[in-house]
């Protein structure tokens, strides 16, 4: 049965995009263009002049920790390097104001980037899940292949948007990546030592290679999958198996490097060796949740009659399991850094706990405790209401996760969920819905040529 894109959903997607676009434009327009404007904004927010939270002891500890490790000259653009433990001098005030100014100009860019990356990450996570099903020759999931293929259609447009944002950063349109600023590098020994890897041309070349590799796999896998529908042998299926196995090898390496490049390098002094895995867990669980939500939505509209509640149950198990896996990695990263308490590492979590307390611990509740308690019961995984509720919380929780990865380094304590953040989320949500459901109409919802289709349709728990 072919899917038709209902006008209501299409209009909803356009409405999301329109509202989101307005939110983003407003966010960009309301960002300060001069230091005076920035001062006025901060004064209006705090009511008592700039930077109240900058007077907390821990913040100074963090700053002094930084001044020990870097040969800091005056470097206003750097987010944590304002070296001034000795009270408020005039030059400090000026530096501080410029610092705030940069954070506030970064804010709409960061909001745009978080949302663009988050929805791109969902489709990349689904692509990895899809490749695993193919490479493992899974018997339960072929009924969901067309849903997964539709979600991965967003990979290329979403990836290009992320790439454009990265290229604009490389052209100094914003200060998301401070290592792109030669002024900063000149005064920062640590970043200077990393320029062999962290330089704009190589950074963009890597991004293009990653994105084209993933897109090529997606293109051929979809092609073979469609060809298999009409074929009378299983040669297309076998080809798909082979390229999926190869893709997974390529993916796990490039995904790691991508996570260092696109996220970890926003905070170029900090590093974590399991960051790639951590980002992977986040995109994997968001992707699986997106599959479950879209499948349940399509079923509620009368499509996908061959998907039974055992398939939903299995998706629920994956959502539950990968949520726990994400928490395991989150905690592994947190505990080692918390326990060793090395200044250059622990600043990462100090910023998040001091300035981002609610989103930081809130996402832990949304991504771990809530799915743990809701999805633990076997029967609940078969009840759409519970699955949708858990799914929406997981999706929002992992948006907060990306928010927590990017915002603290980009805007410091100047964050709030404002028009740019909500607008960015809605805009890319609309685009995501539009691209995914558009792709859904292009092929039958049942990949009928798949040799495991019979097993998948009979699948029961």
């Amino acid at each position: 049965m072919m899917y038709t894109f209902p006008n209501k959903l299409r209009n909803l997607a356009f409405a999301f995009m329109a509202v989101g676009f307005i939110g983003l434009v407003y966010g960009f327009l309301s960002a300060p263009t001069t230091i005076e404007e920035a001062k006025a904004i901060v004064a209006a927010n705090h009511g008592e002049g700039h930077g109240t939270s900058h007077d907390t002891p821990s913040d100074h500890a963090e700053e002094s920790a930084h001044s020990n490790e870097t040969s800091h000259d005056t470097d206003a653009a750097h987010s944590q390097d304002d070296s001034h433990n000795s009270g408020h001098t005039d030059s400090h005030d000026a530096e501080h104001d410029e610092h705030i100014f940069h954070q506030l100009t970064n804010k709409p860019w960061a909001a745009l980037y978080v949302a663009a990356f988050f929805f791109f990450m969902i489709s990349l996570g689904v692509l990895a899940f899809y490749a695993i099903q193919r490479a493992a020759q899974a018997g339960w999931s072929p009924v969901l292949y067309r849903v997964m293929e539709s979600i991965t259609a967003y990979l290329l447009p979403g990836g290009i948007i992320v790439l454009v944002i990265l290229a604009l950063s490389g052209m100094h349109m914003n200060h998301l990546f401070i290592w792109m600023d030669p002024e900063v590098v000149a005064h920062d020994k640590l970043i200077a030592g990393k320029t062999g890897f962290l330089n704009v041309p190589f950074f963009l070349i890597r991004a293009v290679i990653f994105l084209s590799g993933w897109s090529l796999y997606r293109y051929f896998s979809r092609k073979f999958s469609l060809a298999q529908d009409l074929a009378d042998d299983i040669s297309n299926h076998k080809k798909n198996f082979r390229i999926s196995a190869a893709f997974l090898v390529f993916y796990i390496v490039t995904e790691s490097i991508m996570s260092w490049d696109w996220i970890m390098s926003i905070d170029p002094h900090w590093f974590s060796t399991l960051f790639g895995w951590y980002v992977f867990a986040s995109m994997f669980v968001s992707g699986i949740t997106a599959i479950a939500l879209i499948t349940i939505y399509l079923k509620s509209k009368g499509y996908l009659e061959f998907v039974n509640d055992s398939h939903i149950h299995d998706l629920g198990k994956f959502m539950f399991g990968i949520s726990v896996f994400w928490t395991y990695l989150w905690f592994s990263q947190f505990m080692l850094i918390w326990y060793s308490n090395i200044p250059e590492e622990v600043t990462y979590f100090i910023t998040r706990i001091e300035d981002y307390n609610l989103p930081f611990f809130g996402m832990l509740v949304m991504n771990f405790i809530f799915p743990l308690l809701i999805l633990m019961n076997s029967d609940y995984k078969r009840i759409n209401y519970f699955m949708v509720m858990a799914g929406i919380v997981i999706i929002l929780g992992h948006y907060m996760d990306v928010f927590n990865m990017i915002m603290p380094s980009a805007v410091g304590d100047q964050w709030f969920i404002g028009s740019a953040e909500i607008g960015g989320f809605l805009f890319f949500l609309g685009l995501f819905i539009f691209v995914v459901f558009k792709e859904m109409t292009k092929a039958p919802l049942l990949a009928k040529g798949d040799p495991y289709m019979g097993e998948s349709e009979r699948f029961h728990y």
Partner: protein
Amino acid sequence: MSDKVVHALYDDDDVLLSAVKIIRSEKHHIEEVYTPFPVHGLDKAMGLEETRIAIMAFIYGCIGLCVAVAMMNFIMIDDWPQNIGGKPSFSYLENMPAFVPIMFEMTVFFAAHLMVITFYMRSKLWPFKKAENPNPLTTDDKFLVEIGVHDNEKELEKLLKKSGAIDVSIIEKSE
């Protein structure tokens, strides 16, 4: 009630599963099924009550978590506070991340061990207990269905043969 039972032997789990469904649809009461390995879906086919081991596992896990919290609080905070890595042990909450692995392990330990013990008690198993299975073939590759006889041997025998049993015998239970 008579002590006579019918033992029907099967040599395939799929045949067994369909046979169990046939026998139950003919309103015969299956006393027990002996299998060499767990047969997927057999509990549902036999109409057994849902296991409550899952809810017990959750409760046992919670007990384990509480024991771990109490234990670590006593050992590391109350009884002998130490300063480890510049983190003096004056508050459980502030030192909590260090105790998470122990809390996790104790949760798993309690859930796993108490579940096994519960399962043994519930199935009336203990060390050196005499095996209950009536036919040693069920420890190899055969499946045995035991049905109580109420003066309907002939009818039962016919039904069982039809359902694919390779052997049907009537046994006088000596107890």
